[in-house]
Every structure is written in structure tokens, then in C-alpha cells.
């Protein structure tokens, strides 16, 4: 567990601190520089607006050959995020590329909040609500409600 930290991770971490992405913060743990506490603000105009969501991010030993592992810690009502906070997002799986970075991945996650994709669901129940035209207002109301309840600053 004491292998030196790759330069790329050091550089990414420094840049995350010195030029933070608006609405996103990521800070490494003091005792494990591969483990980050992440905060993502719900995008304006979405049903997650006003919420601050906390996530955990871990860079595996083979990063950047493999994607970072990311999970929502805050409860969220979203068709592509399951009860355990796991995220269904192509760039975190098959479409990962070592040219992507922590910041680009977090931006993708923020974009996913702004544009839920119920056609590629991880959370079947939520996706079903989201897809049925007559239920959609209800689903969006629930998402707003959960944001207010769980994603407080």
C-alpha cells in the first residue's frame, strides 16, 4: 500500500485545489491520497438545484488504465443512480479512457444530474416512474423533495 503516488495523481489533485471546477470540490484524505471526498452541486434548472451531494471517489492502483470508482453517499432520486449510490454512466465503465481525469468525470456526473437518462436505467423503479408520461411530474417532485430532505448544505 506504500507505492509512491504517480505524478499524474499529484498533478490532478493540485489542479483540483488551485483551479476548482465551479460547483464541484474534491479533496483527498490526509492518510490516503487516492481517496477523495467529493461535493457536487445540483445543476441550476434541474430538480436537484440547490442540493449539495456528497460522493466518495477512489483511484484504484491501475488508474488511469481503469476508471476511478465513484459512489453517491447522499441519497438521491435518479434513474441512473441506485439505492447504494452506484452510478450508471458510460465513461465510468466501457467508455473510460486514460485521457479522462477526475475533473472531467465529475463534470460528467454533474451533467448526468441535469439530464437523467431513464432509457439506460440502473434503478428500475425510479426509471419506470420517470418514463411514464403521466408519472413524470410525480417523479420530478420526488427528486426535488429528496434533494431538500437529504442534500442540504
Amino acid at each position, binding site marked *: 500500500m506504500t507505492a509512491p503516488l504517480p*505524478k*499524474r495523481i499529484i498533478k*490532478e489533485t493540485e489542479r483540483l485545489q488551485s483551479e476548482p471546477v465551479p460547483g464541484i470540490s474534491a479533496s483527498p484524505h490526509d492518510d490516503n491520497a487516492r481517496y477523495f471526498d467529493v461535493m457536487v452541486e445540483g445543476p441550476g434548472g434541474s430538480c436537484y438545484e440547490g442540493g449539495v451531494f456528497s460522493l466518495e471517489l477512489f483511484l*484504484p492502483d491501475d488508474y488511469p488504465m481503469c476508471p476511478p470508482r465513484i*459512489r453517491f453517499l447522499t441519497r438521491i432520486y435518479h434513474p441512473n443512480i441506485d439505492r447504494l449510490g452506484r452510478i450508471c454512466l458510460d465513461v465510468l465503465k466501457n467508455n473510460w*479512457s*486514460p*485521457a479522462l481525469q477526475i475533473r472531467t468525470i465529475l463534470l460528467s456526473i454533474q451533467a448526468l444530474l441535469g439530464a437523467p437518462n431513464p432509457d439506460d436505467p440502473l434503478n428500475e423503479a425510479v426509471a419506470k416512474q420517470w418514463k411514464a408520461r403521466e408519472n413524470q411530474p410525480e417523479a420530478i417532485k420526488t427528486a426535488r423533495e429528496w434533494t431538500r430532505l437529504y442534500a442540504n448544505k
Partner: protein
Amino acid sequence: MSGYDVEHSIPAEQKEQPRRRPDLSTFFGTLDLVDTSGTRQPQNEHALPLPRDVSAAFRNLANAFDMMRGPATAHEQGNNDLLEQLVQSLMQSAEHPPSEVEGVSDEFIEQLERVPKKELREEQSCPICSNPFLEDTHPLVVRLPCHKDHMFDLECIQPWLKLNPTCPLDRKALVKKKVPPPPSADDEDAEYDDMYA
């Protein structure tokens, strides 16, 4: 949110194994059996690795990661959840093995265009390790065929290409479907003689 162990009703005493580094030699042994890229191409062009060997490669790696998990301390709970996900996805691949490992051949990597040092500029860096090429006194930089600006340290791009035949910058496929090299006439004669002499 309740913890992973609670959700999966894992009793506490199962978490007492000591943490240690996994031994990956079994994994690489089984990987050898299923890697069919380049010169590792089997003699029979239609031969595919046995699904059980492909399964074994994934399962071995899953076991190694599983061992790495070790005991859960409150602090590292998160990491262990993530490792568990990885183990599960590997086990899933073991259940439904892909018919081939997809990476490019060693020959493909050897034939990539090398970029001479005098062509490299100060501000150019490797998209994978993000270090400027010229920081290295003897940079070994290759250019992928998809675009003239898609340059990488050979050392960085190689492990990626061995598993994924795509450019990290534009995801373009770098190889067409694998075509076995046509056997030369001499080879065939030699084989013929062997069998019927």
C-alpha cells in the same frame, strides 16, 4: 445509509482476515492461455481460447482483489465497497466470459510511428501520465494512426492498448477485426512432408 455488511448480511467474524498483497502469478499464468494477440495467435485460425480458461483468468483476478480487501476498518469502509464492486464485476465476466481478449498485438505496438525528439515541443505532454515529453532526456513517444496530434509515451499507451484497441483521445478503433496472417507456401509444404513422410 446502512453499511455494506449490513445490506448483505455478512457476519462480523468474516472480516478478520489479515490484509496482504495478492499474488498475481496465477492470474498472469491463466492470461497467457487466453491472450491470442499477434504472435500468440494459435496455429488453427479458428481456434478460440477455451471459455473456461477465460473464466479462470477473470476469476483469478477477482480472487486476488478479494484477498486485498482484508479487514474493514471504519475508515476504509468505502474502499472496500468499491473493491467489492470490482470483484463482483470480474466474477460476472467469469460467469459470461467474452470469447476473446480484445487488445492489440505486440507487433502492432512495435510498428507504431515513433516521434523523434526534435519534433517534440516544450508544451506537449502525454495525455495519460500528463508529464511533458521533454522532461525525459530520452523520450520514447509514439503517434497513433488516428490523428497526428495523438501522441503518447510508449510506456503509458502500451498497457492500455493491450486491453483496449482504441485511441484514448477519440476512442477510434485502431485495428480491424483480427485477420490471421496467411501461412506461407513453404510452411505448408513443410507441414505436408511432416505428416506423410
